């Protein structure tokens, strides 16, 4: 089998890249994924899409992705409802330092056209009336942040890419990438040998391993982030409520369930995607404290998923001098789903040697050759 390009990873980033390349006329695009569709990080994510970031690059990536999501349903001609909802993110500051940082972030976000506003605790109450403002110093609100169904959004891209001729193999693991003189020659999977000169690594939690297959050293690690979902209830909360100091994100999805998650600050760097009772305990404490009426909701399910994290917690979207024909969209540090539209656009431009829509020098893997990080994303749960 021959291919112009092999995409490793059929999650949201993979289907977005495949769609964008095919739309630009590339033929013989093949996608492999060792799991079922959305079996990896995409299907395990919190389903939120936000633009309230602390670095310029993340703000730009988020803004351009939301611009796409606003018309994704029609653009991709998808026959199901992708459950897009734009009712904002309310970011809650509970320390003085956090309040000061948020001031700077709002200015940064506004500078690229993201309509975030700073709010007093009382103003925050008009947006989320059941918020406990005892510890709240201030809040920021961006009305165009929101929610999308990760399964259906992935399927929408997948169906559109298939119509454009992309070939997908789910449940088929890539075993080896054959290179010669730092050039891609072949990709060997459980059932195929594919001759190709180009490979894209969008393997989410396993992107480091897929890098090493071609001798590419990618400075990322994976860690487990747990999450839970409640039974559905009548609509009481429009926006996602998120706090970096309280370590919580929590939103009511259009279906009625509440989805919430937090970070385990002691999480090990590995591929664990299990679930713990400690998470349930800590999550219940924070959620009921910050959003008291949620105490009456029943938790129906919990799970875990991998964040793939870079040293500056911003993604790597680039080629590399370590191997010619090797491209990557990795290290999204928990936000690959919400950045997927722009990931697809930018990588298709890099691969087809077009001028990228935005300057992405700062997202190149080479930025880590300099040990001093130029920027660091603080806005991560």
């Amino acid at each position: 089998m021959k291919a112009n390009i092999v995409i490793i990873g059929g999650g949201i980033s993979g289907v977005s890249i495949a769609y964008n390349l095919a739309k630009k006329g590339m033929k013989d695009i093949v996608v492999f994924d060792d799991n079922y569709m959305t079996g990896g990080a995409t299907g395990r994510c919190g389903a939120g899409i936000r633009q309230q970031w602390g670095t310029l690059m993340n703000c730009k990536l988020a803004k351009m992705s939301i611009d796409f999501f606003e018309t994704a349903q029609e653009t991709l001609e998808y026959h199901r409802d992708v459950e897009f909802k734009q009712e904002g993110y309310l970011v809650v500051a509970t320390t003085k330092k956090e309040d000061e940082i948020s001031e700077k972030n709002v200015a940064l976000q506004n500078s690229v056209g993201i309509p975030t506003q700073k709010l007093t605790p009382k103003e925050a109450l008009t947006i989320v009336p059941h918020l406990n403002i005892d510890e709240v110093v201030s809040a920021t609100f961006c009305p165009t942040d929101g929610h999308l169904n990760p399964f259906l959004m992935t399927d929408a891209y997948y169906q559109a890419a298939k119509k454009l001729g992309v070939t997908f193999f789910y449940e088929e693991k890539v075993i080896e990438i054959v290179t010669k003189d730092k050039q891609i020659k072949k990709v060997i999977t459980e059932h195929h040998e594919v001759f190709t000169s180009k490979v894209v690594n969008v393997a989410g939690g396993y992107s480091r391993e897929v890098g090493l297959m071609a001798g590419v050293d990618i400075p990322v690690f994976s860690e487990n982030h747990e999450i839970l979902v409640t039974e559905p209830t009548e609509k009481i909360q429009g926006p996602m409520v998120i706090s970096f100091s309280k370590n919580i994100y929590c939103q009511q999805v259009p279906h009625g369930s509440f989805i919430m998650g937090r970070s385990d600050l002691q999480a090990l760097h590995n591929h664990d995607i299990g679930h713990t009772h400690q998470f349930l305990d800590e999550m219940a404490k924070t959620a009921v404290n910050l959003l008291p009426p949620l105490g009456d909701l029943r938790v129906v399910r919990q799970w875990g998923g991998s964040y793939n994290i870079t040293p500056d917690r911003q993604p790597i979207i680039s080629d590399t001098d370590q191997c010619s024909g090797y491209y990557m969209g990795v290290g999204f540090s928990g936000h690959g789903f919400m950045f997927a539209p722009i990931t697809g656009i930018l990588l298709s431009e890099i691969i087809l040697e077009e001028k990228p829509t935005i300057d992405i020098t700062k997202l190149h893997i080479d930025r880590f050759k300099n040990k001093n990080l130029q920027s660091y994303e603080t806005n991560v749960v």
Partner: protein
Amino acid sequence: MSKKDIMICRCEDVSLEDLHNVLNEGFTSIEEIKRILRVGMGACQGNTCNLLVQREVAKFLNIPLSEVKTQKVRPLITGVKLKSILENANES
């Protein structure tokens, strides 16, 4: 009885017609069907619908029921209120 009126998943209001449509689209693993239709994601966590879905998949693929993999079982076994979890966490 019309396929529209035969309910497969009572938690999420999924009919036999919905299920057949997704099978015809090419989604034949229970994990995928769950993510598209939400069967098995509701209050009963698939205890009611899973066997029904399994049977339909087996019929569609013309394979024995035993060869259709069920969905992954995740906690909790039954719904528990967040405040009950909180009370228990505070005691221990």
